[in-house]
């Protein structure tokens, strides 16, 4: 009984945390514009007048893209450098997002069934 009460309180706290986060999203501007996310959500059939939910999706998408990009960056960095001609070039190692790194990064997310169609 006691344990049940405790878990209930914990759940209440979690719920409060989620609500608080959603409220804090009102002040947070994601990089992906709200209108864009709303447009694509509406295209997929999801109707929602709440800006906070749209921003939640926007932030989640931003995190997803950032994760994939950082993975690709790791791959890019870990790749053996091409033959260096100058010493200057070695210092100015320009990182370019290539298809090779991106496909490696996306392969890690590939297990997700609903997204596999576009990879």
């Amino acid at each position: 009984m006691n344990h049940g009460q405790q878990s209930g309180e914990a759940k209440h706290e979690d719920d409060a945390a989620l609500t608080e986060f959603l409220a804090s999203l009102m002040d947070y501007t994601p990089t992906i514009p709200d209108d864009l996310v709303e447009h694509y959500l509406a295209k997929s059939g999801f109707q929602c007048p709440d800006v906070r939910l749209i921003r939640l999706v926007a932030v989640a998408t931003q995190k997803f893209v950032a994760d994939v990009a950082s993975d690709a960056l790791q791959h890019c960095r870990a790749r053996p450098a091409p033959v260096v001609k100058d010493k200057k070039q070695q210092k100015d190692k320009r990182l370019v997002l290539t298809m090779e790194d991106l496909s490696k990064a996306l392969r890690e997310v590939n297990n997700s069934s609903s997204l596999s169609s576009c990879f």
Partner: protein
Amino acid sequence: MSNGVGEGGRAQSREKRKLFQANDFAYAIARMAVAQICESVEVNVYQESQTTREGLRFSSFQESTLDKLASVAVEYVQSIGKTAQLYANVAGRVEGNSLDVVKALEDLGSGVGFAGVSDTDRCLADSSVVKDVIRYTGEAEEMPFVYALPRFPVNKEKRLAPSFYEVGVDPPDEHIPVWLPAFPGTKSCNLSEEANAVAIEGEVQHSFNGGGRSEVLQSPNDVRKSTEEVEGNPFLTAPLRFVKKEVSPLFRPLELSIKHFPDKHISNHRRIPVLESSTPSDDINKENGLAESEDGEKKDGARPQQTLLRFKIGTLKRPSCLAIKRSVQEQGWFQEGGDKREKKLGTERIDLGTVDSE
């Protein structure tokens, strides 16, 4: 057979391309947003053990890679939308709430995995996916989109058809509840519009029948009153007939000015357009031998008929050109000997031409 398959595949790819090209604007914005996110990604944020503190960033992108990543991001958003809508519909709701979105995020993140995914009896609000997102918002710098966007063509407020109750009309049959949307024909505002139109029509008839000048002057006030009563709809204000009535007093001074002439002239020249009004008055002057009239400047009266046409189509430019030509001729610029005579003839011809045209 193989051809068919190949065509099918090609058609599918074309369809997919069309899907992205159909709303090029949104896709272009998605590309830019993704590029901006990629630009902001640093390695040292995720790897603290780096020897160099300065973060490594992407300096450029392959075009196709950016396209692919943008399409993946768009697909991600749409999958979230689809899955959240699915969960909302399964729960018997039309609109999704935050928990549906969280569930959708969990579903999409299940490929990579997250903490507590095996726990079946967990609270959705406690989901580690949400925690990850919260952590991400804390770590990553807040970076709004670089450009201010115009309004998207999104139907934000889908206005449902008004019900019988909102329209304020009783449904035609008893078995139809009031909360159902009204039939297309039944509009309460239509009735008021028709009533107003009838009232205005009546006023028009009244003013036409009266015919007096005082009636005509009163009618605009009436119109104003009626429009005040209509309140709002600007399309219900004064119809064109009233405008015509308002204009008619403007001709009166003209008629009054001719009034002291004999009646036959008035009857002849009553409906004179404004532009031609000068010549008839000249004619009148000539016929009556009245040297002084209100048009004092046309006293000479011997002006030919063309003057009227000149008044109509003559522009300011032509006389000035002629003046310039004459001055040039007088000063003898660019002219020597016989050339000069020819030019003179030419200018004379031009003068004649202009007079003819006039």
